[in-house]
């Protein structure tokens, strides 16, 4: 192939393949003609836009090989459009099975492309080193105008092990420089109220999504500041202790756009923990302001900690009970969650949930997905439940052990009945008899 070699010798195999790919797309010439023309071909003169388009199909490694072929292709490799998105993978061999982004590549990116970066995420493993490396990179993104930033722990939350000041200062660099952050994912990090203030001061017009579950250094006041100033916020994820009536009212204020999605994790730190209540009027305000919003709540509580919940109507749409939840609470769910779309119950005691399910079928008219783990329901009640819900149940994930055969139905009969009412073939979920 004519054309100038750029830099180091080509690693080899990929480039002919790349040529082949392009060639078959352009094969109009006859085979005979092509042979001589090939050497003299337009490869070197392929317009940059086409190269860009092709390069976008290639994974980074193949693109890197291609960039070694000639100067033109090398230039194309460095076009800004190819560097808008990047996911830094920071792993140590001692703590992860995954490969890490090569340090040289990271250096190159910071040197040549940091001002092209717009959508950036960091995936770190459970080692503190990886989290610190992420912070180091963040600190260097000075002339970056990020739209998206995600800090993701793939195993244990290692950002929490980084010295808080180091983390905060790194994050602040991005907040201050970006000025147009639209989406921010900082779950399980030591972010705090002051840094949220910095976020707000610089990005209040553009912030649309904020995910910060399990950020223990943030207080309700801190998040309230965000809601007050960032009127474009459409998605918010946080822990229950940050939720307050004021927050909900701020999110429902006239200046605020419609909220699309509010995700709340309710996690018990110590047994017998007390949780505050949210007034019904606050929820009502939310629904009035954003009638279509989704409220997703994940509960990880002991059975006796549910006192403050489900005593009044609550507009929850997606409900997950990660630990055992009592019959009584499920009964209250049936009464007070008219907007419920999905209900997933990991476990319950060993008393049948017949009445509770029927009640849910009756009152939760939007319910289209239900999952039951370690629970019990009599077959008759289950069939009744499915009959009442009918075809709106698009997800029905019931462990086989949940269904208790009774005088009306055996296990083998039940799947026919249920399939009939659902309008499709249905089986319970199986666990292997290992």
């Amino acid at each position, binding site marked *: 192939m004519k054309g100038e070699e750029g830099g180091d010798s080509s690693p080899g195999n990929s480039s002919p393949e790349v040529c082949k790919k392009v060639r078959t797309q352009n094969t109009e010439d006859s085979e005979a003609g092509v042979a001589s023309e090939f050497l003299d071909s337009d490869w070197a003169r392929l317009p940059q836009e086409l190269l860009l388009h092709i390069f976008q199909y290639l994974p980074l490694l193949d693109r890197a090989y291609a960039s070694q072929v000639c100067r033109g292709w090398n230039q194309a490799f460095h076009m800004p459009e190819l560097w808008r998105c990047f996911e830094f993978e920071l792993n140590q061999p001692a*703590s992860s099975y995954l490969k890490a982004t090569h340090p040289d590549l990271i250096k190159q990116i910071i040197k040549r492309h940091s001002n092209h970066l717009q959508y950036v995420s960091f995936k770190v493993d459970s080692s503190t080193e990886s989290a610190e490396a992420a912070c180091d990179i963040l600190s260097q993104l000075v002339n970056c105008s990020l739209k998206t930033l995600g800090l993701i722990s793939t*195993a244990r939350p290692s950002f929490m092990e980084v010295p808080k000041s180091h983390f905060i200062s790194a994050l602040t660099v991005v907040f201050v420089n970006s000025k147009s952050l639209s989406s921010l994912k900082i779950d399980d990090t030591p972010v705090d109220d002051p840094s949220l203030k910095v976020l707000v001061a610089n990005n209040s017009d553009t912030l649309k999504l904020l995910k910060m579950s399990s950020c223990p250094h943030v207080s309700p006041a801190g998040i309230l500041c965000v809601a007050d100033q960032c009127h474009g916020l459409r998605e918010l994820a946080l822990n229950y202790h940050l939720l307050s009536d004021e927050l909900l009212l701020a999110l429902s204020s006239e200046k605020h756009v419609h909220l699309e999605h509010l995700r709340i994790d309710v996690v018990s730190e110590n047994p017998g923990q007390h949780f505050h209540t949210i007034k019904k009027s606050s929820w009502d305000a939310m629904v009035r302001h954003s009638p279509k919003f989704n409220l997703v709540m994940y509960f990880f509580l002991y059975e006796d900690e549910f006192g403050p919940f489900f005593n009044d109507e609550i507009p929850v749409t997606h409900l997950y009970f990660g630990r*055992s939840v009592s019959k009584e609470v499920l009964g209250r769910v049936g009464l007070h969650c008219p907007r419920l*779309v999905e209900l997933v119950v990991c476990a319950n005691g060993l008393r049948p949930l017949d009445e509770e399910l029927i009640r849910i079928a009756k009152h939760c008219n939007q319910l*289209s997905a239900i999952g039951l783990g370690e629970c019990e329901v009599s077959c008759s009640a289950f069939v009744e439940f499915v009959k009442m819900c009918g075809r709106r149940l698009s997800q029905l994930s019931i462990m086989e052990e949940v269904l208790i055969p009774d005088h009306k139905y055996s296990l083998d009969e039940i799947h026919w009945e249920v399939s009939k009412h659902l309008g499709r073939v249905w089986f319970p979920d199986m666990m292997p008899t290992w």
Partner: protein
Amino acid sequence: MAPNSIHWFRKGLRLHDNPALREAVKGAGTVRCVYFLDPWFAGSSNVGVNRWRFLLQCLEDLDASLRKLNSRLFVIRGQPANVFPRLFKEWKISRLTFEYDSEPFGKERDAAIKKLAMEAGVEVIVKISHTLYDLDKIIELNGAQPPLTYKRFQTLISRLDPPEMPVETLSDSFMGRCVTPISEDHGDKYGVPSLEELGFDIEGLPTAVWPGGETEALTRIERHLERKAWVANFERPRMNANSLLASPTGLSPYLRFGCLSCRLFYFKLTDLYRKVKKNSSPPLSLYGQLLWREWRGNPICVRIPWDRNMEALAKWAEAKTGFPWIDAIMTQLRQEGWIHHLARHAVACFLTRGDLWISWEEGMKVFEELLLDADWSVNAGSWMWLSCSSFFQQFFHCYCPVGFGRRTDPNGDFIRRYLPILRGFPAKYIYDPWNAPESVQAAAKCIIGVHYPKPMVHHAEASRLNIERMKQIYQQLSRYRGLGLLASVPSTNGNGNGGMMAYSPGEQQPGTNNNNNNSHCESTQSSSAAQQQQRLQPPQQPPQQQQQQQHGRSNRHSHHSVCVCRLDTR
């Protein structure tokens, strides 16, 4: 010239329903039954003392049964590939028989031996009797692909003819003129070794809870069937505290080693059902235990970014997690070699997606070492399933390391039995002793953190983190953009997507390819323009992608350099 045969025992350690053995004897002049043992591996292998003991007991039993037919078992020290050529010559062998082994490692080994045999002019006869069905036929029926889900597997099974009947037990009359030449020094040369000879220190070793051997297996199956008919009326027995304990009617290790023919079990079960239920047709669920071990479905393995943490793994393996329910189960596993299948779920979940977020492959290795009935594929498949690395399976149900145990055995007797240090705790606190007031701990003579470890994770926090992670991973794979947890897992039932679609501003712009090297189990050619039907294929990716994919043995990570030696490969 009547042939001289060798029957090669690997699994199938029985004289009943052994078609390959019968082929060895049929019309032969001499027959020798061999079993290969590589003693050098015993000490260093990833196989614990219980499994070795079980095997040796099986071999003793075989030897005893063969003696009644004027034959003996030949235990050969060494590797089949090295020893067979010599044996072919020395014994003038012209026929070799063995039971088909569908395990990946077994297939490799057998291919090599078949080649050797061919070179030596030895006829090789292989018979299927470790499984109910011919697994290749199933794959054929499924369009040359292994069934991806267990449900699919069950559907295929229901279309097949029933399994073949078990063949008759080897008897004197069948032996006929066929003899086994036995030398005076047979015991020295070819006798079954003892545990000490294999390098185990047996001082203080309690008697086996699960005694090995065909004789024991056949006794058990009768007891098992009596119990089934009498107790459950074939209904699924409810799990209770007693179920956790080893049962004298338990059969899984015997099925795994082949002391008990699965076909015999199948037909006896069927007969009994028909008798009790007056000739009605047994449902597929009756054979649950038998069918699960047949499913070599090669489920699509989702690549999950597990944590590498040897310290945490060790705590789990050595029953030092600080969660009595988990620790008691792991203790029973180590001491006896068997735990109830729900107990397996509990500890597997705890290790992987529930709490510790450690790779299922690590857990599988521990089970392989300790569990008597750990058939490699079943073990791997089950682990993959339990850790929710198997693509089509829901992951929402998490086994609480406190609650699940408490619901199963409210009094905590199981805990007290295997963790005597906790005997003093009342039922209220025995599952979460760290919550017990100091006075209770003092009265129990067990201070948490001193006499028994503190819990190694905060379960609520760990579950929160893990379920979110699983959801993200699955959503990325299934391209589901909604909010539903259940809909994140693609369904082969055609359930479709539930939940409401959420607007996700600021998500990655489609079209710009950012991914450098880690896409979970998909083709790396992702782009908006190429919005192909991203249906996952069984892993067939370019070499650089193969980090954690199929459970095929040859695809293990290079850093898993442990030689997992298996008993039946000698």
